[in-house]
């Protein structure tokens, strides 16, 4: 979708504000809600950047993550105290300043230019998927056929997470306890 550059920056600024509120707010519920807004804005931004199925997945996955965290909070303490450990704060500010400086000086070396992506191999996929595989959705063709081996590993990651939830919610860990 052709959107002028200002809208990109607007969405990014809103996301930064949302994540700031999420980190620094005192009540956990309000920080979770602002996390939800950041996820929603991210899903809209994916749509603008030309990734529709990523936008759908991000939208629904973010809702489920919110539900998971809310179910972890309900019935337990809902406020987080504001004291932060001074050592980490200073260490973090130091790392932040150093990396912003290196970022600004070297950014055109490290990051590719925003508008034009390196389509050296991406272009081949755009030819291959419709002609050879007869699949119109190139992203699904990549995820499930060209790089399907990744997706097996990734489907096993969800499987591990659910086994992990089952392991962690047992009645007691050791028999002799």
């Amino acid at each position: 979708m052709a959107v002028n550059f200002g809208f990109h920056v607007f969405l990014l600024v809103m996301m930064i504000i949302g994540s700031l509120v999420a980190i620094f707010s005192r009540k956990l519920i309000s920080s979770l809600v602002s996390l939800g807004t950041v996820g929603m804005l991210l899903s809209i931004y994916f749509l603008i950047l030309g990734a529709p199925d990523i936008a759908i997945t991000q939208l629904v996955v973010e809702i489920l993550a919110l539900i998971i965290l809310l179910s972890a909070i309900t019935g337990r303490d809902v406020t987080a105290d504001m004291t932060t450990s001074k050592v980490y704060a200073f260490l973090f500010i130091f790392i932040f300043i150093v990396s912003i400086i290196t970022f600004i000086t070297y950014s055109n070396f490290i990051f590719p230019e925003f508008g034009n992506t390196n389509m050296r191999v991406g272009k081949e996929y755009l030819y291959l998927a419709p002609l050879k595989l007869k699949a119109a959705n190139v992203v699904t063709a990549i995820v499930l056929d060209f790089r399907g081996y990744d997706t097996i590993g990734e489907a096993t990651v969800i499987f591990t997470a659910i086994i992990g939830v089952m392991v962690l919610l047992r009645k007691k860990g050791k028999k002799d306890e």
Partner: protein
Amino acid sequence: MIIYLAISIMFFIGIYGMMAKKNIIKMIIGVNIIGYAVNLFFIVLGYKNNGIQPILVPGVSIEEFVEKAVNPIPQALVLTSIVIDLSTICFLAALSIRIYEKYGTFDLEKIRRLKG
């Protein structure tokens, strides 16, 4: 350059949320924000100026589609890494529930029984 600067600011906010905050749920929110920032970084890498979505619709010819479509590779990777972040959050939520059962609080300061 501004886009990458904004993404790295968001990344550092997530890192701050993980490192400096002592509440487990705030750490999980930090993990979430780092996941968002890295996924956005991938999709921004694959963006082409006013490019269309990499899905062929009947009206568009192949040559025009290849010319204007966005890079599909980062999108395939982000589909995987979104779900990896969701699994990490799922596991961390279960872990925080069990830690809460044992300590009665999410606050790491009271939980510090392990020496470094």
